[in-house]
């Protein structure tokens, strides 16, 4: 029974990752795109923790901590880029960023 639930935790991680990925592909707002990347990273961390719980080891949780640090770094730089983007392009629509001009 327990093993079945842990498999279901991996299924939950896959569902959350898929939702985040669908949002990443369909939404055009830069902030929402960053939030979808956060959802996908969180789902990957959930898969790590579920696998670690399956074997009763702490390694999965350690990996989640690294995912957490990476997500924090990514969102800090991403939001800084969003602020610059808003200043230069005057919108948050990522489709407006289609011109490779300096």
């Amino acid at each position: 029974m327990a093993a079945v639930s842990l498999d279901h935790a991996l299924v939950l991680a896959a569902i959350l990752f898929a939702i985040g990925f669908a949002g990443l592909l369909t939404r055009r707002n830069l902030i929402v795109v960053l939030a979808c990347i956060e959802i996908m990273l969180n789902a990957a961390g959930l898969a790590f923790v579920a696998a670690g719980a399956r074997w009763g080891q702490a390694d999965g949780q350690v990996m989640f901590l690294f995912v957490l640090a990476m997500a924090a770094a990514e969102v800090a730089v991403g939001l800084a880029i969003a602020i610059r983007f808003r200043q230069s392009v005057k919108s948050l629509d990522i489709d407006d960023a289609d011109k490779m001009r300096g």
Partner: protein
Amino acid sequence: MTALFYIAAVVAVLSTLMVVTRRHLVHALLYLVISLFAVAVVFYTLGAPFVAALEVIVYAGAIMMLFLFAVMLLNLQADSPLRVPRTAWVGPAILVAILLAEMIYGLTMETQPLAGAEVGPQAVSEALYGPYVLGVELASMLLLAALIGARHVAARTSDEEDAAASMERGRAAAGTPSSAQSPAAEEGDA
């Protein structure tokens, strides 16, 4: 504990769907907070209480605070009115009430984690500062690089400062009365 897991999983999927489908940016971010809370409950049922606490503190606390700060800095009122309709709180309130009931149940009842034995903070810390200590150092350097990089990207470049300064001078030469308060406005923009 199995029931707790499945209820929290349903809440997580529902709130994540709301994040992707909401048109209003602040609504999407608040649903994202609920999604992170639900995943924290899932971590708890999996026997990882330390990671569950970190999920709430770092993800739902610090990272979502960064998002809300960015929304405030971007000053989005012009794009979308930030007025929240009166019925907007119903969906999040129901989802959070489910999570609260689960949390009270998990704290008061004697529950067994799904994996059989929970891996507590002590085991995680021993692994983190034992075999993974190099990873901790790398994570600290990554965060420092992100800090400096974010400051560098978000700060105004020297070209823009020159342009702003020359505009200032031009305005002062023309004797525009608004030149006195324009530095404050520029600061607000930055």
